[in-house]
Each structure stands twice: as C-alpha cells, then as structure tokens.
C-alpha cells in the first residue's frame, strides 16, 4: 500500500468514526428528551368519525381535538388529532388498537362499533343542536295509505344499512309492531303481500324524493329532515307513524382508557359550551350544542338502544 492509499484509508476511517459519534449523540439526545419535556407533554388525544370524506371531517373536528389536546397536559397529552375510519370495522379496529380515543356517531353504528371493539358510550352529543331524534313514516296524501298496515306488500324507502333513523329505528319499530320486513333490491321489486319491503335510497333526500315521485309507497326519515320539507309540499303528505326518540349521537371512548383521563374528558366536553372559545368549537363541530349525560342514566339509555339493535340484528 503506498502512502496515498494509506492516507485515503485514514480519511475514510476518520469519517466513519465521526458519523458513528454523531449518531450516538442523536441517540443520546433522544434519550434525554423525556427529561427535557417533563413540562411539555407530547402525548396525543385522538378523536374520530366514520366518513368517506376525511378531509372535511378533519376540518370539522380539528378545533375540538386541539382543545382537548391542550387541556390534558396532566396526562402527558399535548396534541389533539383527528383520525377518520372508512367504515365501522375500521373504526372498531382503531378503537381497539388505541389509535383512537374518542369516537362520535349516532346510536346504531356507535353500538355496533362498541360491540365490535369493546368501546364504551359515555355521553350524549347534541349534534346539530338536537339532543335526540326519531323516525317518521310518511307517504303522499293521495296514496291512500293511512297506517302501517297499508304498507304490506308495498315498498318503503330507508336510508342506509347503518343509519339509526333511516334503518335501525324504523325497522325495529316495524318488528316490534309485529310486521314482517324484507329487504328488496330496488323500489320496483316485488314484495310479499304480508311483508313490508324496504329498499335503501342511500340518503334521506332520496327517500323524500322517491316518496314525492311515487317511486315508493312510503319512506322513513328523521323528523328533522322531514321538517325541512316545504310546508306546501308537506301539506300534501301524510305521517303514518312516528317512532320513539333516541339520542342524536353518542360519545364513545376506546377500551382501556385511563379512567381518570376519561373523567377528565367527560368534564372537558360537558363544560365546553361554557368554556372560553368553546361555543365556536362546538359550532364548528357540526353545530353541536353541547355534550351531556343520558337523562335516564347511561345504563338505561344504552339498554333500550341495545334492545332495538337486538331486534334489528336478530331478525
């Protein structure tokens, strides 16, 4: 090896040594981080929803997530994040794995996800400023329909298979009332004479249009959507029956959440409407009026909803 080769080898060795020393310094810094952030929590509180439009949902909930993240420092939490699941199984998996701490949804999907993930409903959310809602069975006044009995052999438009007011409530109502229900693929499909056929329109708006156009004999929608129908048109419709009320939305927490942290979250959410800047945060979060506890108690409320769920799932 000549002198030039030796020199090159030395340079390389020195460079490698320098790099190794640098890496060790970084590791040392990482190790030192917990000590230096003892007063700056880095934990994350994650809230979420099910949607096929995650961007929109994140924009809706980010302020709420930030609020929670900034008020749970005592639990090592400094950041709030919003995470969106594409469907109920995805949401159940995120809750079960701890990726998500809090989840908002209407009773039917919330109960399904809770059942699948072991999550727990803890509060009621006044989404859209409404604490509870119910389902309305309606038809055109000139259809000749007067009661649910008249729906036998007819097609009724439901919303979606995971809709509380557009599926669980009306179907459970029909089952509880002793009617046989059967899903049909489209409004024109034949329905047995003794059964009431239901077909999913995909949206409450579609349900109403289908009834107005005569595509289905009747439809179901939540009472809020029904109220949005102009009075002139509504006067030409008839309400066949209205179901019982259920909470508008539930607040569900993941299994295994620190009880103290859960209690802190409950307090933060319940007091948010009176907190500084809280009204704006709630307004941005789909015009939520407030969070509160179930008036009849959590267990009682959940028991009735689980009964309805059981009716639907057991049929």
């Amino acid at each position, binding site marked *: 090896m000549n002198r030039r080769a030796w020199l090159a080898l030395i340079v390389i060795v020195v460079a490698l040594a320098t790099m190794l020393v640098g890496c060790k310094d970084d590791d040392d810094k990482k190790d030192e981080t917990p000590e230096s952030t003892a007063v700056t929590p880095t934990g994350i509180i994650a809230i979420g929803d099910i949607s096929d439009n995650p961007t929109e949902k994140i924009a809706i909930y980010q302020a709420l997530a930030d609020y929670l993240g900034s008020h749970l420092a005592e639990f090592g939490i400094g950041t709030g994040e919003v995470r969106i699941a594409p469907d109920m199984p995805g949401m159940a998996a995120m809750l079960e794995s701890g990726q998500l701490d809090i989840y908002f949804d209407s009773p039917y999907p919330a109960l399904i996800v809770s059942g699948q993930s072991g999550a727990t409903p803890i509060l009621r959310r006044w989404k859209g400023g409404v604490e509870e809602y119910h389902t309305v069975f309606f038809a055109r006044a000139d259809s000749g329909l007067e009661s649910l009995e008249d729906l036998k052999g007819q097609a009724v438009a439901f919303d979606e298979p995971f809709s509380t007011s557009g599926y669980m409530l009306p179907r459970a109502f029909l089952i509880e009332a002793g009617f046989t229900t059967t899903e049909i693929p489209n409004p024109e499909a034949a329905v047995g004479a003794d059964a009431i056929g239901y077909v999913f329109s995909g*949206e409450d*708006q*579609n349900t109403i*249009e289908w009834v*107005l156009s005569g595509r289905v004999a009747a439809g179901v929608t939540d009472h809020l959507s029904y109220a*949005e129908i*102009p009075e*002139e*048109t509504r006067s030409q419709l008839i309400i066949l029956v209205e179901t019982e009320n259920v909470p508008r939305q539930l607040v569900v927490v993941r299994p295994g959440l620190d009880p103290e942290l859960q209690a802190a979250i409950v307090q933060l959410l319940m007091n948010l409407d009176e907190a500084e800047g809280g009204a704006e945060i709630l307004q941005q979060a789909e015009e939520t009026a407030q969070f509160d506890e179930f008036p009849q108690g959590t267990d009682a409320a959940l028991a009735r909803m689980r009964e309805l769920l059981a009716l639907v799932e057991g049929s």
Partner: protein
Amino acid sequence: MHWSPQHSWKRLPLSVKMALAMTVLVVIVVGVISLLSIRREQDTFRNELQAQASLLLDFTQSASSDALYTLDAAYLRDLIAQTDELGGGRDVPTEIYDRDGRLIADSQGDAVYTLESAAYSTRLLAGNSMTVFDWGDEDLTAGRVVVVGREKIGVIKISLSTAPLDEKMAIVRNRGITIAVLAVVTGAALAYLLSQTITGPMRELTEATKRLAADQLKQDLVTVKGDEITALQVTFNAMSARLTETLNHLNQRNHDLEIANEAALQASRLKTEFLATVSHELRTPLNAIIGFSDMLLMGMSGPLNEKQHHKVGRLQENGKRLLALVNDILDVARIESGRMELVREPFSPQKLIDQVSAQTRVLAENKKLEFKTSLDAELPLLLVGDEKRIEQVVINLLSNAFKFTEQGSVTLRIFSDSDAQTWSLAVTDTGIGIPAHALDVIFEQFRQVDNSSTRIYQGAGLGLAITRHLVQMMDGKIKVESTVGAGSTFTVTLPMVIPEPTPAIMV
C-alpha cells in the same frame, strides 16, 4: 327667407359636395362593415356560449344519467355544486328535473321537495328537441332532455350569464366605433383632397369660361395631367381657338354685310327718292294732260267730232291710268321709305260703304255686274282709323274684283267680331279665281297670277302689295280664299277702336 335642403345642397361648392358625398359613402360602407363585424362577433360569441352550455350539459348529463334513473337526488345536488365550480368562477344556475318534470335539485343546494311539475321541464319533456337554447336579456338558458334507452328520465337546465358576452360585445362595439370614426375622418380627408384634385382644374376651367364669356376668347389652359379633366381642358382650348377663329370670320362677314347693307339701303333710298321724284314729276304733266283732255271733251276748245272725241277720250283714259300707276308707285315709295303716315280719326263705316259704292258703281255698270254691300248692324256707328287709307284698301280690292269678274256679282261686307275686338271688311267676287299656288305671291309687288293676265287685265300688280302694306301698317291682317272659276274673297281684319264719346256726340 325660405330654406330647403335641396336649395342649400345646390349652393354648396362642388368640392364640398364631392367630399360630402364620398364621406357619406365612407360612413355607409364603414357603418355596414362595422355592423356586420359586430353581428359576426356576436354570433361567434353566442355560438361560443352555446358551445360552453352544451359542454356543461354534456358533462352534467353524463354524470347525472344514472342518478336520474335511480332518482338519487342527493348525488344530483352534489353534482350541481360541482357544475357550479365548472363555470369558471361564475355562477351557473343549474336545475335538474325528474321524469315527471319535478325540480329535484338546483344550485341553491337545498332540497326542493315539490310535487308540482315545472312548466319549463314539462315543455321540454313534451317536445321533440333534446337540447333547447333560450336567449334571455341577461342569460342563456340551455335545457337538455336526458334519455335512457327510449325513456325520458329527466331534464337538465343550466343558465349562463350573458354578461361576459355583453362585455365582449361592448369591447368589440367600442373598437368598431373607434375604427369607424378613424375611417370616416381619414375617408373624409382623402375625399376632400381627391375632390380638390378634380375641382381645382374645374375651377380653372370655370374661370377660363368666364373670361371667355367676357370676350377673352383666346384661352390657353395649362395641362400637365392625362386624365379626363385634362382632356376637357384640351378640348376647351381647342374650342376657344375655334371660337376665336369663327368670331373673327363672323366679324369680317358682319363688316362685309354692313357695307353691303349700307349700299343696299343707299340704293333703296336712291330708288325711292327716284321713284318719288319721278312720280311727282310725272304727275304734273299727267294732270295737265288729263285737264286739257277734259277741257277738250267738254268742248271748251270747240266741238269735237266723234273720232276726235273718241281719241281724246282714250287719251284721257290712259292719262288717268298712268296717273293711277304713278300714284301707286308713289305710295309704294312712301311705304318703303317709311314716310307714309296714318291719320287715326273717327269715321263712319256706313259712309265708307257709300263712298266706295259711289266710286266703283260705274265699274259694275260697265261690266253689268251686280254690286252688293252689307253692313253688320252690331258694328259701332263710328270707328277710329285712317279712313282714306281704309277707303284706298277697299277701292283696291273692289277694283280687282270688278277687274277679274266677267259675270255675276261683287259683294262688299263690313262686319264685326266683338269677341276678338276686331272688325273686318270682305270683298267677294264671282270672277276667275286664283290658283292655290299663286295665293302666296299675289301680295308681292308687280305680281299677278301670271304674266299673261297682266296683258289681259290692266294693272301693274301694285294694288295688292300696297293693300297689304297699308293693312299691316294699321295692325291688321289680310287673307284670301279663292276657287278657280268660282271667285275669290279677300278679307281684311282690323283692330276695333271705338272713339271716346265727346260732349258733342253725347248731345
């Protein structure tokens, strides 16, 4: 002062007229071109907007067919929101109707929820056109009937504001106006300059014509160009030269004629003077001859035997005839020299008839002719005129009538034509008549119908010439109607002048 556009236009200079005419032409042409251009641009923009509307309809139809088929109103409302974004930042009001014509989605985003069919969609669903464009004042409404298979499942309606179109048209219109104004100004300036190139030589030509009219016949316009104006100037110069030459020639001719005329007048004067002198000198011995023959015939120099009486009688007769001829010649001479003057004074037509009857009765008796006279009762008792000359006219006509009539009668009629303010005297005979070809010459001096008649019928042919001269001097007319072998009628028409009533007459 009365003003009229036609009058004012005529008074304008030619250069201004030409400039104005060409400017008007430019204005019309530029105006028409501008209007056509604006119209074309408007059509282009409208087509573009229609194409844009069609594109939006195509997109919306493509994206909404399935949703319309399944009546997925929620999807259609989301779709409309996207269509709005496709409008390039401007509002694109969109409406979607179902197969019944019900509005199920619009740009408001809210659910409509109506049971009623809209008039617009009903019209389209009932019609045969799949795409309909309706131009409004502020927007273009485009409608499309969505068909799946053979079924009309809905209608899409979009409205595009024409504000951008209006803005573009305003730009085009303003640009067009600017160009038009520039074109008109430039055109007017060019038209004025062009008119100057035409009217400049025209003015020179006009000035030269004025000089020509002021007897400056020799004109020589400077010609440097080769157009029609130059040709006109060259022609003008040639005309000026020719005019000068002609005028010089005419002047020379006039001068010659003046000399000749003067000589002729001098000769005429000499002739007249000669005739007057000769006549006068002839009358004295003739009167002596006639007077002495009278004395002989009266037997003042002793009785004459029959043969002597006959010869003296012939002597007297020829002497009188010669005196008459001399008198005629003297009259002609007076007339031609302008020395015959008329005396206008009241006279009686009845008395005139009586006098001429007395003088000519012997002629009728000699030839055993019937002589008739008549006087129109409507004629005034007195007329104003030169009685002697009128009498001379009548005597001349009667003498001719008796001369050329061998049998039958001679008639003198005096009658009035109060409507024409004239009175006439007519002499009619049953004589030999005058051939038609001779009617025009019988009033000339020394002319009878033919030379032979001069020998058969006595006379120098001066009577009718003198008669016509006298009638013309009295502002009258004479005419003759004649049939050969049947006779003639000479009619003299004179102005009817009635004398002013005098106190004596009134008494």
